[in-house]
């Protein structure tokens, strides 16, 4: 099949970018990124700069890849990262517009490559369970209801790709943040830090310049791992509770006189 590609080209973070048009030949068994590989091989051979795009595992789990195809993050197929998208999802003669994730918190580094360091900083602020390595009790010491473990896993499946932010008209990161909060809040091990975590992660999310959720639901539609907006509801509940209790901790948690 023959395709026309309009691709965002931008030399670096400081330069202005623009769309450049290319033509591509593809075979329907190819993955989308393999189609771009072939375009790039041709560009290199002609002495031109290949199109920079992030990718790594190419099996939809590392979360490295991702750009917008015709206005949809990761392209037209639901629950599919762009590396798992195959050319059979397109028709001969299609024109495809490719652009990077657009969000103030994700500056473009080059072409389709963006900086998602903001996500790491949100995790560093509170997206963890502080359990010193070496001091863990037996793994079966605390049984966990299967339903809770399953729900926790549903949220933990997030790959941190950033499609939710790219899809959101407000460039909000709430699906990402709520997925991590939900994953940890469903587990008994996640309880002691639950309220602190809610406050810290939300504060960092705001500091990074992400927007706020206004219930468009685009994030859920774009999410390649089908993370549900229900977690945003749970996050809001935790955040409200955490805010109402302020910085105060429960009585007795300040330690003894020893």
């Amino acid at each position, binding site marked *: 099949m023959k395709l026309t590609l309009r691709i965002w080209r931008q*030399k670096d973070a400081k330069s202005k970018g623009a769309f450049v048009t290319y033509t591509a030949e593809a075979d329907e*068994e*190819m*993955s989308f990124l*393999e189609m771009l*590989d*072939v375009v790039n*091989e041709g*560009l*290199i*051979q002609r002495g031109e700069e*290949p199109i*920079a795009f992030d*990718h*790594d*595992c*190419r*099996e939809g*789990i*590392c*979360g*490295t890849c991702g750009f917008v195809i015709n206005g949809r993050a990761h392209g037209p*197929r639901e629950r*599919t990262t762009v590396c*798992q998208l*195959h050319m*059979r999802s397109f028709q001969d003669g299609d024109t495809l517009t490719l652009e990077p994730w657009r969000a103030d918190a994700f500056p473009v580094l*080059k072409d389709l*490559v963006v900086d998602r*360091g903001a*996500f*790491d900083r949100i*995790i*560093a*602020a509170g997206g*963890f*369970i*502080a*359990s010193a*390595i*070496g*001091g*863990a*009790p*037996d*793994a079966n010491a605390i*049984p*966990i*209801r*299967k339903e809770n473990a399953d729900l*926790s*896993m549903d949220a*933990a*499946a997030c*790959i*941190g790709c950033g499609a939710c932010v790219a899809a959101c008209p407000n460039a909000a990161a709430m699906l990402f943040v709520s997925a991590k909060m939900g*994953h*940890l809040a*469903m*587990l008994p091990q996640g309880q002691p830090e639950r309220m602190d975590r809610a406050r810290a992660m939300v504060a960092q999310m705001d500091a990074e310049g992400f927007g706020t959720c206004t219930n468009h639901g685009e994030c859920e539609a774009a999410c390649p791992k089908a993370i549900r907006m229900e977690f945003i509801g749970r996050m809001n509940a935790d955040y409200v509770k955490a805010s109402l209790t302020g910085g105060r901790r429960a009585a007795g948690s300040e330690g003894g006189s020893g």
Partner: protein
Amino acid sequence: MELKPNIPDGPIEKKWDRHRFEMKLVNPANKRKYTVIMVGSGLAGAGGAAAMAELGYKVKCFCYQDSPRRAHSIAAQGGINAAKNYHNDGDSVFRLFYDTVKGGDFRAREANVYRLAQVSVNIIDQCVALGVPFAREYGGLLDNRSFGGAQVSRTFYARGQTGQQLLLGAYQALERQIGLGQVEMFPRHEMQELVLVDGKARGIVVRDMVTGEVETHLADAVCLATGGYGNVFYLATYAKGCNTTAIWRAYKKGAPFANPCFTQIHPTCIPVTGEYQSKLTLMSESLRNDGRIWVPKAKGDKRAANEIPKEERDYYLERMYPSFGNLAPRDIASRAAKRVCDEGRGVGPTGFGVYLDFHDAIERLGQKKIEEKYGNLFEMYERITDEDPYKVPMRIYPASHYTMGGLWVDYNLMSTIPGLFVLGEANFSDHGANRLGASALMQGLGDGYFIIPYTIGNYLAREKFPAVAADHPEVRAAEKAVSDRTERLLSIRGKRTATSFHRELGKIMWEHCGMARDRKGLEHALGKIPGLREEFWKNVTVPGSGRELNQSLELAGRVADFLELGELMCLDALERDESCGSHFRLEHQMADGEAKRNDEKFCHVAAWQYTGEGRKPDRLVEPLVYENVELAVRSYK
């Protein structure tokens, strides 16, 4: 040079305890005075960096990905082994140890494997404490499944995303330390050179992959946890960025490379479809719990799978290995698949494929149960092939998946270069000539969480570390080597892309140093690779400059190293004139086609030491002694 494995004395079950007691400790207040570099942020890297930071060391952690959460440990699907015996089915530390030594076809170091089996128990506890949502039963306790090479259920899992969940646990522990200022993280930085001062590893030179800046980072010790080198085959289940550069630089600075020819070809991957193919995708071994592998009995049978009646199918693993059946170890299952395809009984458009069929399991357990266990894998398969594995059997074929070889390390995970530690898949130590399923995650986290935090202290406490000046001649020389190499790659401006060289190398390696090897083929490959490498340095084209984000430059540097490593692999495969585990020399097989070891001549680790450009490296030997598992013919029948 003599390889000193530094295995502690005493009975095997006491070695690690005794060693931990005998190690020198660094006083808690002094730990902050030491800086440790960690290259890589997978299970071993992130786990080790977090654990050392928790102890109080200053850690600098580097990864080529845009975030430490993306290291390729994330792609492991099936599970992680641990000798918990939660199911009362006869498991024990000794049994896990025994299975791993046997699975590795008696080419692993006993003491290391035993320690791994011991810490496996702590790993699961630690992961649960960090919030890993392992699969659970209705009673709330942890669920298990079986993996190849074992007759007990000891594999813990989180749906088909176990590696992802374990890595996120380690990554979150790492991010916590980053937030606390104990770890300084350098994503999108690639190690290009190792800095040795007075013979000790004291730093690394890295390239900032966004700005192209060449930077030196100095420290008191360097840990490499940079994963395996299986992308030497071009088509592999590895992430596209996985490479050998860090360990190859260390090799060229004097660290011996052990058993480079021990590479695992995983039996269950989605077959190749075309020339443009960029990678192969694994379908977890856990699928062999419920999937049955078969091909038609007749050659060239082109009927659709469901039109072939049961009696005309050959469930060859069940037939050949009745006691392990579809759960035979990976090397054995891969070779069996190759054999039936070479006989002309392979399926699919290319004839290089076998069926992995869930029909019976769906009938027995219902589609819902299968979906719960393997849903994401089935979906991934459908995305790639456009076929629904609930209705038609999957087609699978072996692919490069893991490398048992790696930098040689002693019991402390230290190479022969003082202060250079090597963790996880990057070292050679625990899996011998074949790794069992669900053991890579175990080793990565074992090395990172539970071994390096002890052994690093023992090293730091015993040595003195005079400050190294930023303009030390060794630092300057390493920086210059990096800049010169980049310049050289950019100045060739030839006609072929780095990918085309990589693909050509991969074909040579797959053909002659893949699932089956022989003298003739290996000699042929050894004749071809130097020529290909020479052409690369004359005719590769790398657009752009070194002072920017340049993915072509990154790739070219990695391919250049694969072109050298490939030759070493073939040399190692040639000199190891026996078959063992994954290393199958056609000249050495039993009457039934099983690998035939030669313990008299090859019951050892072969570690290659670099001797200079264009010279044959020295083959050093570490004899392997089996005191606890009887050296025997491996049988899974």
